[in-house]
């Protein structure tokens, strides 16, 4: 007889979400629903009628960990709609910003994941705040990597959180030769740290893969070999940056996207029948409470080719580097493997940057209402913004953000796992729930919006 257990709220990720799971007598998940319960803020609706300059600055405030993604996808969706090609040096500044933010975000996520892991070869769980080695030097390395990344982001982006420099048509400012030299120095230091750090993090996740059990709230839980496996596909538009409808050969296809309501996809009303007051910290939802994922989920369910798919570091590596490791740890390892490329990316781009080149397009059309889209490979995966701009004002705006894509996929990946490890699987996706929570794109008659988009 299956029982229902609920972890609410989930922790050590961005935003507000919960896990509702049907489990068998052994506590193994038969069907899991992971859903956002973050209040919808309605960015897409309030964007309508505002200027194309303003909307990406508002969209940036969707999330403070990956504001770069929303700023760049937002600005570039506007540029795609109005048909504006930006100067080469503006592209390079944006590229550096993108790489820097990815470093910072992945390093930050390490802090969130490490407490589930053990010091390799021991039974000691990692407390990132401890002064003991080897954790202390890893923590210091993480903070230095983040500091380097945020500083570089600040120089090219104007601001590390909510970058001020990108604008429709390019960037407000190029950087000085001194700033360029500073980026070199920082990225050279960062490159060595990133390599060292990647190796450390991979050894930690590999250690978890080879362990038989791990302790969660006083219970010794068996770790299945296929922890977090799923059979969904992957979606990625580029190894580092992204794609847009201005590209000669775009790598994202709006006609392959559809979206269904949570109603069609999540579980109906259930009563909690299993609980563990010792689940860290504060216990799970007590028995007798009700949950109704269909009604409570605050995101739509986006599908690509009719299926939920995975986006993020592994999807990028699968698509562009033939990576094939599955499961939660496979995803974590893929994320670490992205570290060195971010610093190499910065070094290459800053090398190519001409600090006296123009960074704003000569002409910025005001738009005729055509649909444009831009996909940005955010730290957590493909972030697509779609827009129609007419006479400088936004007529239509929609966000398809990484964690929204991952919600249904990760839910599927819970099946077969002990429920006490569900959060470990979820954290492998580096969820950003604020990002994911947005208005549904589907209309009243459940007509597929993508069809409307390409009409």
């Amino acid at each position: 007889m299956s029982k229902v257990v609920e972890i609410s709220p989930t922790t050590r990720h961005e935003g507000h979400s919960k896990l509702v799971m049907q489990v068998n007598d052994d506590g193994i998940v038969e069907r899991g629903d992971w859903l956002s319960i973050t209040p919808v803020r309605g960015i897409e609706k309030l964007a309508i009628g505002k200027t194309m300059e303003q909307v990406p600055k508002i969209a940036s405030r969707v999330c403070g960990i990956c504001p770069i993604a929303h700023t760049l996808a937002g600005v570039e969706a506007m540029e795609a709609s109005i048909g504006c090609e930006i100067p080469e040096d503006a592209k390079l500044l944006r590229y550096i910003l993108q790489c820097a933010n990815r470093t910072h975000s992945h390093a930050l996520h390490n802090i969130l994941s490490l407490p589930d892991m053990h010091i390799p070869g021991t039974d000691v769980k990692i407390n990132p705040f401890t002064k003991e080695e080897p954790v202390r030097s890893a923590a210091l390395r993480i903070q230095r990597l983040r500091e380097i990344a945020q500083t570089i982001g600040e120089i090219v982006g104007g601001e590390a959180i909510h970058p001020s420099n990108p604008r429709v048509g390019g960037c407000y400012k190029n950087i000085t030769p001194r700033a360029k030299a500073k980026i070199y120095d920082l990225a050279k230091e960062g490159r060595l740290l990133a390599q060292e750090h990647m190796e450390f993090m991979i050894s930690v996740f590999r250690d978890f893969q080879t362990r038989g059990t791990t302790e969660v709230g006083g219970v010794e839980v068996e770790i299945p070999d296929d922890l977090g496996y799923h059979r969904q596909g992957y979606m990625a538009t580029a190894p580092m940056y992204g794609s847009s409808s201005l590209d000669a050969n775009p790598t994202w296809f709006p006609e392959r996207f559809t979206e269904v309501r949570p109603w069609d996809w999540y579980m109906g009303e259930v009563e909690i029948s299993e609980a563990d007051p010792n689940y860290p910290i504060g216990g799970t939802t007590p028995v007798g409470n009700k949950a109704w994922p269909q009604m409570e989920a605050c995101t739509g369910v986006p599908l690509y080719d009719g299926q939920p798919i995975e986006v993020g570091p592994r999807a990028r590596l699968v698509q562009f580097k033939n990576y094939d490791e599955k499961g939660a740890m496979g995803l974590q390892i893929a994320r670490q493997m992205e570290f060195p490329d971010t610093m190499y990316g910065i070094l290459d781009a800053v090398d190519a940057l001409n600090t006296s080149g123009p960074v704003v397009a000569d002409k910025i059309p005001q738009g005729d209402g055509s649909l444009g889209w831009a996909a940005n490979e955010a730290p957590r995966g493909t972030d697509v913004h779609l827009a129609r701009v007419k006479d400088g004002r936004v007529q239509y705006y929609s966000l398809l953000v990484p964690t929204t894509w991952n919600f249904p996929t990760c839910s599927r990946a819970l099946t077969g796992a002990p429920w006490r490890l569900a959060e470990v699987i979820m954290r492998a996706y580096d969820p950003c729930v604020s990002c994911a929570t947005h208005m549904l794109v589907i209309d009243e008659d459940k007509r597929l919006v993508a069809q409307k988009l390409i009409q």
Partner: protein
Amino acid sequence: MDVLGNYKSVISARSTDKDITKKSQDGGIITTLFAYALEEGIIDGAIVAGPGDEPWKPEPVVATTKAELLAAAGTRYTISPNLNLIKEATRSYGLDRVGIVGTPCQMQAVRKAQLYPIGMRDVDDKIALALGIFCMENLSYQALEAIVEDHCNQKMESVKKMDIGKGKFTVYTERGAVSQMPLKLLSKYVQPGCNVCLDYVANLADISSGSVGSPDGWSTVFVRSMKGNAVWDGAIAADLFETKPMDQVKPGLDLVTKLATEKITKNQKNVDARKTFGLKADGTAKGLRNPYETP
């Protein structure tokens, strides 16, 4: 009242660098100190009032060379929003040690941004040298034009130097003419915001400098902070300044104190008057905001 602020020493001084004193307003203190700080790596750039697109209209710039500092030397008696660049200097300019010059109100802004950095991330620890200039009041660009072109009857383009002192606003042209306007006509042109200003000698700067108190071509210099002290001692050791003890120059510190007291007393009255500026329907006073008090 402590009208001159805290300071470690006050000196009358003049730069020994002739290139600088040719262009500077008074003793060339600011330009010389920034050039020295740049060379010593104390700062890697300074926000100064550079040339703008109209004559005598300053435009804040980040100077990283002596030539850029020289181009910005001298006083422009109109608003130069130097703080506009304080954050950008640490961004696209990539500075780690920022120098900034400004009037007393601008020094207040710098210090406030350091202690209460609202939207000023990573600025506080990058302020390396804040140099203040004395300031009695400031003018809008239109006001300056009216004074120069109407009252003094000179073209802005022809003017070589402007100076306030000895009760007069004086304009020197490149072709040698000198025109003056009595300062008592100035008040209607003053930026209204200057009427609540309670700082004359840039009390919050690391070092502040002005003309009052010292002879022509010399400056009165207050060395205030530890940082200011170290920079000043270094510049003296490098023979960058001629100095005279303040009590041996005319008109001396008494005049500085007198003018500072006058400014503060007059403006404190303006601040107080705002409290009872208006009337409510019931006949009681309804005031204007006072930024020096918590509402």
